[in-house]
């Protein structure tokens, strides 16, 4: 966690090579196990519970999903077996310093260069962007606006003209990076999906990532609840465990209600993800909004229930609290997602 890389390479090798987690959702044709997105759900909960530092999320939930949704056969053939085997890490570079979560936020541009393309601009908030082997970059055709004109490109992390730097963040459990594209030339086969339709592909990828993130948030929120309950059973004041006081007991009860409801929201969205349902967007946004609120609430209550020890560096509570805030802002805050749900309801 404390290295600039942001994760332990030995752990990553173990979970990708020995445990084959990276192969789970990759189709069998590309060296994976071909399991469903719903099968991924419990694993994401566990990773959230442990605040596992690894490039799994960026590689599988962003990189592999974008390739699966938008890649041609040759592109999948080229990248997915490496991802399944844990040899290739990947990520999606869609956001920029302007802090927007919509197509307008894509200001980086591309221009045609013979049969290939030249990419220019600065991406930011790129998860594991400083270490990923493969960057999937959103850029727009010069002088286009809105969703029209955005395309996604596959760019090797070490391509000429790419400058990447770790972006130090309050949450230390997931690394963000800036990626500067200084006239980066890519070939025609770097285009992912249809030219000009990249924002739609980006949104669909993000929805899948939001669902996985929601499952992580459920696991992490539940860990906060468990820590609170364990502590409330053993910490004594006034001669009895503080968990016997309603002031503490009722906080824990509310946390349980939120955690189980958040689990329902994420579980429902995961179930839809495998089926290509039209309601996926609403389900993903519902899950992201509710699970973000739940995780933040539980992480904050966990500190309060722990009292003095809860706000120290020594205790793990702060790591969950910081991660909760970071996860809440990632891929659109709860208010962004509620507005999206409102639109889907026809409001």
């Amino acid at each position: 966690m404390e290295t600039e890389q942001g994760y332990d390479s030995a752990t990553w090798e173990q979970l990708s090579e020995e445990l084959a987690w990276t192969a789970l959702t990759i189709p069998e044709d590309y060296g994976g196990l071909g399991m469903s997105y719903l099968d991924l759900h419990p694993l994401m909960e566990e990773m959230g519970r442990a605040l596992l530092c690894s490039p799994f999320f960026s590689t599988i939930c962003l990189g592999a999903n974008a390739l699966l949704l938008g890649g041609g056969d040759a592109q999948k053939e080229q990248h997915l077996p490496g991802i399944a085997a844990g040899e290739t890490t990947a990520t999606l570079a869609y956001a920029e310093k302007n802090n927007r979560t919509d197509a307008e936020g894509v200001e980086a541009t591309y221009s045609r260069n013979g049969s290939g393309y030249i990419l220019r601009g600065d991406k930011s908030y790129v998860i594991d962007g400083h270490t990923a082997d493969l960057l999937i970059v959103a850029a727009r055709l010069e002088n286009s606006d809105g969703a029209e004109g955005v395309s996604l490109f596959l760019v090797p992390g070490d391509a000429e003209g790419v400058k990447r730097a770790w972006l130090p963040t309050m949450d230390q459990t997931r690394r963000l990076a800036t990626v500067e594209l200084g006239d980066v030339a890519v070939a025609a086969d770097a285009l992912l999906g249809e030219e000009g339709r990249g924002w739609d592909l980006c949104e669909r990828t993000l929805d899948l990532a939001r669902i996985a993130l929601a499952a992580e948030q459920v696991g992490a929120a539940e860990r906060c609840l468990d820590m609170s309950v364990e502590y409330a059973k053993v910490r004594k004041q006034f001669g009895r465990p503080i968990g016997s006081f309603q002031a503490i007991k009722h906080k824990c009860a509310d946390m349980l209600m939120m955690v189980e409801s958040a689990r329902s929201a994420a579980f429902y969205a995961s179930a839809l993800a495998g089926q290509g349902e039209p309601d996926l967007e609403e389900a993903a946004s519902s899950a992201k909004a509710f699970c973000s609120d739940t995780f933040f609430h539980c992480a904050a209550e966990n500190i309060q229930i722990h009292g003095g020890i809860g706000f120290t560096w020594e205790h793990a509570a702060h790591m969950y609290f910081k991660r909760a805030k970071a996860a809440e802002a990632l891929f659109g805050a709860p208010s962004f997602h509620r507005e999206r749900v409102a639109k889907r309801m026809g409001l």
Partner: protein
Amino acid sequence: MELQLTKEEEAFRQEARAWLQEQLNGPFKDLRGRGASGDQDTYIEERIAWGKTMGAAGWNCIGWPKELGGRGCTIKEEAVFNEEYVRANGPGNVGHIGETLLGPTLIHFGSPEQQKRFLPPIVSGEEIWCQGYSEPGAGSDLANVQTKATLVGDEWVIEGQKIWTSGAQYSDWCFVLCRTDSEAPKHRGISYILVPMRQEGIEVRPIKQMGGSSEFAEVFFDGAKAHEDHVVGGINNGWKVAMGTLAFERGASTLGQQYLFQKEFEQVVAVAKRTGAANDPIFRQRIADAGIGLKIMRVNALRMLEHEGADLNREALISKLYWSNWHRDLGKLAMDLLGPEAELLEGAPYELTGMQKWYLFARADTIYAGSNQVQRNIIGERGLGLPKEPR
């Protein structure tokens, strides 16, 4: 994601739907949608007749074993029936206390004679039951009941008062928690006694709620009599029996309830569009939040219904706290969306609109059947294993 139904279960759904439509579009069409929250004291006689018709056709107590007059339906089938019932606009069921509380208690704790005497008229819809639990001094602290029963000859003689008794005005019988040993610790001196309502020693006074309707009543016992053999589960063992009764509610009614909530939510959305509140970013957030909450409630319920095993899982423990909060908040949202129009009545002298009725009645939702505070104690102690407080 939906409830996964087998072919037989789907056929059961169709059968229920066909029967309900035939009845509620025909002889009972005036009862459609009557007797819901805030309207439970209307059309009593007609609803009793409806209960008997349901019974004759085999639609009461469908979850009970066949040898006791039920259909032996699974919890899933019960949930499906409930959903169809609400979808067909079935009226508030006056027999539900007998069917969901007293019946299962007798099946679990009653003697063969008690079962033989009392179960058949519940199935047929001929005897209506009410629950004599709360007292002025025994609300959340239910074990503090003071209503006293004394054995005189072969009869129990009962003195005291119950309150918040739903449907006492039209019930034939009441199961009453009485103190039968005032020396014993408070949980150990209580008996669960079956008392006929239509007798001289009982007086019922309806309580008018804030919405103007009278769902609940006070019941005064002044020398009321009950048969010596009509104690369920043994003398002084009533606390255990009463706690058992509470555990029988396993959520069969939950899908039906959500269908009602869905309809209320749709009304709220329609109001937002009509008043222009749908363009307000803050209202959009609140409406979306309510919509998300409703979807989650449904998935919670599906998880609860798919749960196998007799224990109450965590989804079941949170159910009451979740829905009552959600429903209360929806009522507030509805009134906020209406703005000044929220004040306007349907008519004089005090005829409320449907929305005003459930807005007001939702304030009772977080109190009856275990207040939010009691629910949180139960979740904390049973769901999370937190230590009890000294009692």
